[in-house]
């Protein structure tokens, strides 16, 4: 194999410096893997030419599945034949990205045998990404993965691999059990995950609290973000302890940065007007020993965030201000079904649900999925007078 190693002077530069080097990783795999060698070579070529060398993938996949594999071919196969085909595999990560060392080794075993030995831990949607293999390897990989208890994630116009923050597994702020919920939802919709039948992709991301550690409000067609209805729990002694610490200025840094201006601090007592608190988490974040979310916990459900293609990026918007998130999650599933049905039937090709809602109007969307409009859904009522009055309905 040694003869295949071509010099990579440009990439070698990226082995230097304190941050872990992806070039080092590529070289590690390249020691024993010819595809990884060619990948180094083609990347060095890209660095020389300032241009990529990948072509649109054709449709590749495993039997019975429509998603989970991204087909990829390079445009100079004569020079890099080992990666003439170089498809990636999206493997559904364990909820919250928790692993045992054995599980990781099992994945490594499969991938070293059947692919480049290179991975992304993890892809932006959350999947384990097996980076590059040939079409013929797909079925064997899939068989071994399922044998080991892993399955493929989503790609194409399907439900994408849902993801969740670590939640109750490690975080005291989780207002609902994100891992249980993401697991249940993922299992319920295996068909939708694996067999693209939507107008476009549909992502679900779950965060245990408004800190939103999975960025769900920015990149999920459905964002389920934990929150609470009752009062923030206050441990007065811990407030006092906090205040006496070094460099502490509760008035300026906590009360002064409360977005709803609903806190007070007289040097001794902290007051919170919970009826005006917008559950932003800031005070709790700043004083984790003294404050905690209330006990009447649940989540806000929002819809529609996405990247800019094509009408501009969207953040998710409020659909249900507060709901309890509890097994068997029937109400959430009913909501998901209602949305999918409406969007599935009326969405245009490559129209995300957020764009769809904007096109038909949130008011109409609500009517169709059977939700009552509430003022929490808007930052403000309409300013233009272009009301589609429906005199018959009143």
């Amino acid at each position: 194999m040694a003869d295949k190693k071509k010099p990579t002077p440009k990439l070698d530069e990226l082995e230097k410096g304190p941050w872990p080097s992806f070039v080092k990783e590529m070289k590690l795999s390249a020691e024993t893997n010819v595809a990884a060698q060619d990948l180094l070579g083609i990347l060095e070529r890209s660095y020389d030419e300032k241009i990529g060398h990948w072509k649109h993938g054709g449709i590749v996949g495993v039997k019975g599945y429509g998603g989970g594999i991204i087909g990829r071919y390079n445009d100079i196969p004569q020079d890099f034949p080992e990666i003439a085909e170089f498809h990636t595999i999206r493997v559904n990560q364990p909820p919250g990205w928790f692993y045992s060392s054995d599980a990781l080794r099992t994945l490594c075993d499969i991938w070293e045998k059947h692919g480049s030995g290179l991975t992304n831990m993890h892809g932006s949607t959350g999947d384990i990404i097996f980076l590059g293999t040939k079409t013929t390897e797909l079925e064997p990989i899939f068989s071994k993965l399922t044998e080991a208890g892993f399955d493929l994630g989503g790609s194409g116009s399907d439900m994408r691999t849902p993801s969740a923050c670590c939640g109750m597994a490690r975080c005291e702020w989780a207002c609902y059990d994100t891992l249980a919920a993401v697991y249940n939802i993922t299992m319920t919709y295996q068909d939708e995950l694996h067999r693209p039948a939507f107008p476009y992709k549909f992502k679900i991301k779950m965060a245990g609290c408004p800190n939103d550690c999975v960025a769900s409000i920015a990149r999920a067609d459905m964002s389920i973000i934990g929150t609470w209805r009752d009062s923030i729990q206050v441990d007065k002694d811990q407030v006092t302890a906090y205040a006496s610490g070094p460099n502490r200025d509760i008035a300026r840094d906590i009360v002064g940065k409360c977005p709803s201006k609903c806190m007070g601090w007289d040097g001794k007592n902290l007051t919170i007007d919970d009826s005006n608190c917008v559950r932003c988490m800031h005070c709790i974040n700043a004083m984790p020993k003294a404050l905690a979310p209330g006990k009447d916990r649940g989540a806000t459900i929002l819809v529609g965030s996405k990247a800019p293609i094509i009408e501009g990026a969207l953040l998710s918007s409020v659909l249900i201000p507060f709901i309890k998130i509890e097994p068997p999650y029937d109400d959430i599933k009913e909501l998901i079904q209602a949305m999918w049905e409406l969007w599935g039937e009326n969405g245009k090709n490559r129209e995300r649900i957020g764009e769809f809602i904007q096109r038909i109007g949130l008011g109409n969307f609500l009517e169709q999925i059977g939700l009552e409009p509430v003022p929490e859904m808007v930052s403000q009522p309409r300013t233009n007078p272009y009301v589609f009055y429906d005199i018959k309905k009143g």
Partner: protein
Amino acid sequence: MATEITTRKTDIGPPHYQKYLPPVIQKNYGKWKFHEILKPGVLLHVAESGDKLYSVRAAAPRLTSTKTIRLFAELADQFCGGYLRYTSRNNIEFLLTDEKQIAPLIERLKKEGYPVGGMGPSITNIVHTQGWVHCHSAASDASGVVKSVMDELFPHFEKMDLPGKLRIAFACCLNMCGAVHCSDIAILAVHRTLPKINKEALPKMCEIPTTVASCPTGAIRPKMTDGKQSVEIIEEQCMYCGNCFTVCPAMTLADAENDGLSIWVGGKVSNARHEPMFSKLAIPFIPNNPPRWPEVVAAVKNIVDVYAKNASKYERMGEWIERIGWPRFFKLTGIEFTKYHIDDFRHAGESYKRSTHLKHTPAEG
């Protein structure tokens, strides 16, 4: 090697969510009381039961060799019963119960080249995408830029010396896989020239109506070329979004001379204090300069420095800029304001300044 599997399972889903949780988590699931960052990269969670969980967070290269994964597995076996996790930003976390193991674990990680940090008011891993490593759309390389930038910003990973969390993201084309559109600093690779139409391939690979319809600005028109159905692009209407390429592979955008990077600032995702915000354009274009993109590195460094010096405690980039105003941001950073900064897409007018709330400077002299 294992014998080939004969029964074929489908739709089994991911492993059950409890399967890989360490015993301390199984026991205290949902019963954590508070946390504390003991030092950069070391997080303590205390349960109502009094049990303690230590999470040690190390920088992981997202593009990882199985060999390194095996190393992590080995470290987990050695220091914490084999339990570990990845974070939503691609760092690796070792889940310890024995406080005494923290120091040796960190030492070992450092030695292997996976330093510990990225917690609290710091810079953590850059969320990024494929780049020239795997994607057909990429206008730059993701991994190389990320590595170069993080090498420079490394002190802020190891120390918690910033006003607030600073999240950086990278995406290699306008599809923006990731959260580039909502990051404190976003590096976005851009194409800036017309899609090149492959006359031969197009009629074979693409449906003309779909291709025409794919263009959000209506820049694409059907046209006969050499007697074959093809398309043409009206130059003035193209904003290089690449949507046509997604739909029709015969319209490639990559351009060695003119592709490069843009820099965006002031986005955020959390609801802490300010509502989530989009990233806003700071620098429209910096040429690709592999392998270490020094101009990009310097530009990001400059923004981080100015922010670090001027923002107040807890203030995220966007909150700080909102407080001081965009004119001052451009002044303090020395970044030039151009017509490119002024929105001209669908809702452009919404970003025009529609009040006289301006900060003026007295006339000179």
